[in-house]
């Protein structure tokens, strides 16, 4: 009986540990910087940077990021279809670095502040 309770306890602990780990992975999976409604995100384990133009104002949008390896600034892709649905993406360079900071910039108008990735 005691062994059964102990086994159930171990299983419950394992499930809890898995849920916490999954939540952590989810939390670190993506983060974004906003400039008005335009957005730049680091996603897919922060290994891809995505630019989303969401303002129908004719100003092109691109994300910028700083890699976690050399801490250099890199330009992301322009969102080539403007404010229509859909975004443009590039992998973070140099591979296999991740994006430590990301910001969203709007042509002519300006940029958001850099948002730093925080480990959960």
């Amino acid at each position, binding site marked *: 009986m005691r062994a059964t309770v102990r086994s159930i306890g171990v299983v419950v602990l394992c499930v809890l540990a898995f849920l916490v780990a999954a939540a952590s992975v989810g939390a670190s999976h993506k983060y*974004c910087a906003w400039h008005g409604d335009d957005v730049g995100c680091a996603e897919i384990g922060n290994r891809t940077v995505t630019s989303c133009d969401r303002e129908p104002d004719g100003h092109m949008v691109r994300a910028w990021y700083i890699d976690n390896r050399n801490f250099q600034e890199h330009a992301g892709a*322009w969102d*080539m279809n403007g404010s*229509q649905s*859909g975004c*443009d993406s590039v992998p973070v360079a140099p591979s296999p670095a991740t994006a430590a900071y990301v910001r969203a910039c709007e042509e002519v108008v300006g940029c958001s502040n850099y948002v730093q990735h925080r480990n959960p």
Partner: protein
Amino acid sequence: VPQALRAPVARRSVLAGTVVVLVLAGTAAAAGGISIGSILPGDDTPGPPEYRQTDETVVALGVDPVIGRWRIVRYRSSELADRGEVLQPAGLPCLKLTLQAPAGGPPIGSRSWCGDRGQGGVAAASLPVRTPDGRVYTLLFGEAPEQAAAVEVANSDGMRRRVRLHEGPAMIESDFWMDVIPRGEPAGETWVEWSGADGRRPGERVDLTLELGQPLTPLGVGAG
């Protein structure tokens, strides 16, 4: 056809057919067994550019002397949301250019987009690369309507560069294209447009001025 000529003609046809089959087989072998229409299954292993959230369909591929093996794939977007807002819905059509490592290793770089481009079916994006000798090239790629007979990169100085069209898989009603040009060419106001078999240009174009004028950081290629 005289009887004496029939056998050689038949033999030549068989020979030509064999050559075509061998060339196709060679192309498939060079691409690691992947050919037009191949489905690359999605997985959940993070680590772009090999990462695939969903299945990808190969729509064009080739080997270029500057960048090596490349391929263009079509896939459907996964949802991207933040602050409770959907930034990109799931299910949009996406296109990705991937550069393949020479020895079958993981891909060395990519550029992708999702969503309808809204310029009558013509779409374009760029990916700059730097070769080991320091030369920088711009890869231009995209898609064009099925009825396109030609795609041209043009600029306001009168330059026109015709790019090669790749016929996509039968189930996808688009053609695809990729071109490698030296950095800085073309300059100024630049665009991509397509023309039909009669040479007429419908006037649907993608403006590349900003894309080429303020490009991405070049990606190193060709090492090893």
